[in-house]
């Protein structure tokens, strides 16, 4: 090819990606009309340039990153979708023991989000022992609720789940016709007490809820706390745990932090 044609060809690349100025681009159009070789080259490369659009420009334009931030709870939903165990705790059983302290009703919020109005840091369970690892299948159920892990920003390792973790789960349900709240509690014994999980529907959006477990000796312990999801129709599944023998538990009760009883679920 002649040197002149070669120069036109190099110009063709900039023409295809739209980088030529108007005058240059017009010259290129005129040249293409009269040059079969360049037209053939154009026909070959035009689809390639067109394909570049398959990758969004934003991928190369970090300055265009907007301030739009995903919901902080997205991480929990993502890890649940990935089938990863939910945020939990590593270490010995004593590390995860959730102590029922009758002198701190309401102040003890194992498994609950940290709220500004927490009584004092000393009564707040530490993140490391506030959570109980969850089986992936239950983790997958979590949606739209704020769990402690999100509040703490905690994603510490979990103890590997074993077959035994899924064995012996009791499931009990109840409906409160008066307020329209219904729920199902699942629980099972663990070496540190009882794993408890409640799936609840019909709670007024934004309500600050507490799940208590009561045993046959009159002990009442917080199993978990959470905010109700923003949609009343949405079922929320909240994991928790109590330092109570599963066999001793007589009932579960959901109340608002103001003390209003939303639902009572008798144990089996």
């Amino acid at each position, binding site marked *: 090819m002649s040197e002149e044609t070669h120069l036109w060809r190099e110009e063709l690349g900039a023409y295809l990606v739209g980088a030529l100025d108007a005058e240059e681009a017009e010259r290129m159009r005129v040249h293409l009309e009269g040059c079969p070789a360049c037209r053939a080259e154009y026909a070959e490369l035009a*689809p390639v340039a067109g394909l570049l659009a398959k*990758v*969004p420009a934003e*991928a*190369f334009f970090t300055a265009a990153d907007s301030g739009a931030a995903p919901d902080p709870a997205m991480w929990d939903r993502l890890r649940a979708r990935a089938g990863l165990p939910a945020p939990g705790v590593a270490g010995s059983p004593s590390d995860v023991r959730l102590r029922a302290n009758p002198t701190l009703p309401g102040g003890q919020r194992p498994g609950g989000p940290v709220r500004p109005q927490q009584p004092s840091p000393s009564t707040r369970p530490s993140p490391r022992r506030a959570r109980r690892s969850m089986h992936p299948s239950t983790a997958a159920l979590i949606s739209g609720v704020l769990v402690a892990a999100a509040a703490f920003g905690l994603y510490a*390792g979990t103890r*590997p789940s074993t077959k035994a973790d899924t064995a012996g789960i009791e499931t009990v349900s109840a409906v409160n016709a008066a307020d329209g709240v219904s729920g199902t509690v699942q629980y099972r014994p663990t070496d540190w007490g009882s794993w408890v999980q409640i799936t609840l529907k019909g709670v007024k959006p934004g309500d600050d809820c507490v799940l208590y477990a009561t045993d046959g000796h009159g002990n009442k312990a917080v199993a978990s706390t959470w905010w109700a999801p923003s949609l009343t129709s949405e079922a929320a599944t909240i994991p928790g745990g109590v330092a109570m023998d599963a066999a001793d538990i007589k009932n579960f009760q959901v109340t608002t932090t103001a003390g209003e009883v939303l639902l009572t679920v008798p144990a089996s």
Partner: protein
Amino acid sequence: MKRSFSRAARPAGAAAESPARADEERLRALYEQYSGPLFGYVLRQTHGDRQAAEDIVQETLLRAWTHPDALDPDRGSVRAWLFAVARNLIIDAVRARQARPREVGEDRLGEDWAGSVPDPADDAFDQTLDALQMAEALDALSDEHRAVIVETYYRGASVAEAAKALGVPPGTVKSRTYYALRALRSAFAERGLTR
């Protein structure tokens, strides 16, 4: 910031950790670095439909997580790969919405964003070449070729502007653009994607 998303590049100390833990850290690293930029991009495409945007971002990150070999953080391709995946998923979502009968009241729910995304059938090339292959082909370019394409095509720079940004004469921008397109075409031909 240098981060690792691939199994191979994991530090030796990670060997002592459980596989589940290491997997989680890979996902967390992807999430921390890319969920924000991806969400911003997808949210614009979905006209502010946060639920749809989150679904797409989650799926994008999961695909990256389950295909660690496709991600080479040393070559700067991770971001292009992820955005390409997200774009594919947006198009899938558009198709799903278009295939479905419209529901009463959908308009006022702001869910008609699907109509504004360009029809993927308009793509003037072999449909079998998807965005991921495009991202990989870009990745296979020399740094100089990739940089000139990013400037002229993706950032919309003129030859003069690209010359200034890259610190090379305008003639060099033109020739590099041309040879970058030729290189891309060769990359497609190698993959059997061109006739």
